[in-house]
């Protein structure tokens, strides 16, 4: 009878630990096992990505729709190419959409802001592997200050 009691308590302990892990995995971390949600890929070329990092969020109107998959330098034009991994449930962005690298708050982290464009009969939808043409680079604070000081000199 004592073995049975011990076994029940150990079982409870294991279940508690599993519950803790599930809570950490599902409620605290952002993805479940293996990033369960399906994504599709878009590319965007920028002149300057500022402080953008891999796994930075992609937001539409403040809502996170995906994450930056990788950042590479184009071998021909020497401009950064950012691979955007967007959740498959948000699959209907028109090709007139634009992306910009924005900063959350004055000193916060940088993220990719996606602005959906207009839709009419001649506009196609962006699909897996397409490139977004209309991009705005990150604002580098030092350059901005430099320009400001330079203009004041005149």
């Amino acid at each position, binding site marked *: 009878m004592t073995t049975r009691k011990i076994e029940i308590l150990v079982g*409870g302990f294991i279940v508690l630990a599993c519950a803790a892990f599930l809570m950490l995995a599902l409620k*605290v*971390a952002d*993805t479940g096992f293996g990033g369960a949600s399906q994504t599709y890929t878009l590319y965007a070329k920028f002149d300057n990505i500022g402080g953008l990092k891999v796994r930075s969020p992609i937001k539409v109107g403040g809502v996170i729709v995906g994450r930056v998959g990788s950042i590479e330098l184009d071998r021909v034009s020497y401009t950064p190419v950012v691979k955007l991994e967007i959740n498959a449930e948000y699959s209907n962005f028109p090709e007139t959409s634009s992306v910009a690298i924005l900063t959350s708050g004055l000193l916060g982290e940088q993220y990719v802001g996606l602005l959906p464009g207009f839709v009419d009969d001649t506009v196609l939808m962006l699909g897996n592997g397409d490139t977004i043409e209309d991009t705005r680079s990150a604002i580098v604070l030092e350059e901005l200050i430099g320009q400001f000081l330079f203009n004041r000199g005149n």
Partner: protein
Amino acid sequence: MIANRLQKIGHQTLSTISGFGRAGIMLFGAIVGKPDFRKGFPLFIKQLYVIGVLSLMIILVSGLFIGMVLSLQGYNVLVKFGAEGMLGPLVSLSLLRELGPVVTALLFAGRAGSALTAEIGLMKATEQLSGMEMMAVDPLRRIIAPRFWAGVVAMPLLALIFNAVGILGGHLVGVEWLGVDAGSYWSAMQANVDLYQDVLNGVIKSAVFALVVIWIALHKGFDAIPTSEGISRATTQTVVTASLAVLGFDFILTALMFGG
């Protein structure tokens, strides 16, 4: 004079090295070999109860309070920058990456490690271990192995529970008491915590700590001088050595996981 000094240094070095050697041989003898699940499993469950379930209370309470204190202190600093929305990531990342594994290991060394050392030391002092050998029962397989595996299994589980309770404690103080928005507490946490980078690295850390703490505890007990003074010294050594080893390993693991 100089020769005596040299001899002392040499003696200490040699005894340290032979201590490592004995610890290695003990662990090797305990875990390498054909496993006998039918006999070993009930022993393992019994030890899981003694080591894991009975440590649950101290883990739950200290996890809750550490989460609450983190939240309180973090709030006081963050609110000055108007960044109290980042309280969730602060609490969860510091728990998942550092405090969870480390504090669990320290508590575990104090709660379970010292008990193991004393238990095995007393078995040695009362010649139960020699008795077993007389009966052709290998004490390494019968006594050391189930305790070792139970410790290695129990500690990562305890650390997970510690983390979860700590984050809930942070929620309790931050959201319920200090009035941080519940949505931003959880969503900022979800945006900043990564399952592999943070949660699983914490589990790996705590598995390494488990190995270190339980090995030290078992070795100190198995190697204790079989007198009451020897056992008391071994128990103290377990807590001190295991705590220092955990802190040292924590630095190395942090540098490997998050340093690059």
